[in-house]
């Protein structure tokens, strides 16, 4: 299976943005790299068709997010067996003190996967509600309700609540 024409150039241009998106979804670089590589590997066999019909970055991002949600579905059944996840504790060893980045990571991880995906697509990838709905294959109403619930939760999150409160003037 040869490398598709234009694939390498696309990865060079977009990998940083895709990795950052994936970091917000997974919360760590190992997971982010795995997610981006998996999503790109899925697009590889269809690359020439993808570049013909649509903006490839839109398509790849859709694959990225749906792959993430697929992982979460499969993993959620396993997590019952695994029990409590040691991720939090490990994170705290690495990031000491009130690190805003760690607060964001922890707050994002506290969100259910679909809410997390909506936050990332709407506010990091700057998609509209209807574009977000198209990526997730749900209604605009569902996007709105996921976003509202996620926002309410983020505004309660330790380390973020002050930044996201009404009172701060820009």
């Amino acid at each position: 299976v040869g490398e598709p024409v234009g694939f390498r150039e696309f990865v060079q241009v977009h990998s940083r943005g895709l990795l950052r998106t994936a970091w917000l979804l997974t919360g760590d670089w190992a997971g982010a790299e795995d997610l981006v590589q998996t999503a790109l590997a899925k697009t590889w066999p269809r690359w020439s068709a993808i570049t013909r019909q649509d903006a490839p970055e839109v398509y790849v991002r859709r694959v990225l997010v749906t792959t993430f949600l697929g992982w979460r579905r499969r993993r959620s059944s396993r997590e019952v067996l695994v029990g409590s996840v040691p991720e939090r504790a490990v994170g705290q060893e690495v990031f000491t003190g009130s690190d805003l980045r760690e607060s964001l990571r922890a707050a994002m991880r506290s969100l259910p996967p679909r809410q997390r995906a909506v936050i990332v697509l709407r506010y990091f990838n700057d998609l509209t509600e209807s574009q977000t709905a198209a990526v997730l294959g749900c209604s605009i109403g569902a996007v709105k309700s996921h976003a509202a619930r996620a926002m309410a939760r983020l505004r309660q999150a330790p380390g973020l609540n002050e930044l996201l409160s009404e009172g701060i003037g820009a």
Partner: protein
Amino acid sequence: MNPIEERLTALLHSVTPQPPRAVSVDEIGSRVRKGRTMVDVFSMRTRGVRWYAPALTATVAAVILIAGGLGVAVLRSSGSGTPGGPPASPSSTATSPVPTSPSPLASAPASPGVHSSPAQQPVGSCQTRHLAASSVGTGGGGQAPTLIIVLTNRGGSACTLIGYPGISIRGHTASGSASAPLSVTVRDGSVFARTDPGPHQLVLRPGGAASFALETHSAYDVQYLITMFLITVPGDAGTVALPVTMGAAAPPGQPIPVGVTALVAGNTGPSQ
């Protein structure tokens, strides 16, 4: 977007770290060649918590230091949906030589908490998560709105800054209201209202500040309203978000031109 959504957007853009390394096309290729089953096995494997962020942060910082030292400006394409895309080098960006070691002549005016580095001081580059940004309008020239942007070290230890800040922007057209990333071309050097001091190595003690002047152009009419600057500094991959309201104009179909001076010590920007 409401103000809370704007703030969350700024938070996500400024706090999400830059990746430690690029995606390897060769690794993807080998996954594909191992077949579809293998891809599925990869996708299902437990992605345990492997934190190699700290070890790689230094590498990223070094890369960014080089990029920053070359005066590479961040070019954001509007509407492409890839915020945080890789920096491009706009043709009109002037590069200034940045000394790899501070020149003894490169002394900056003394101000509380800041001094020019007396040679090899073992102080790390300032990390954006420890920097707070604020701004003061100067009015600038009639067609060159100018801000003095102040970066204050909120960390617990001294750190160094050198050279020109990187700038990306968010905003909207004068008639619009929804902010999004806007394309920008950053030119390093003097601006209408202030003279570029050239790159100096600055040491910011805790509480110390450095500043630079930033101008846009508004030739007769304001086409864009900038609502957010995302500021990078050489030596760190993150950005500092600064909410603003600033007019700008650009030639048709071109990125918005922005001029920045090098950083100087203190909170009043370079002299005229």
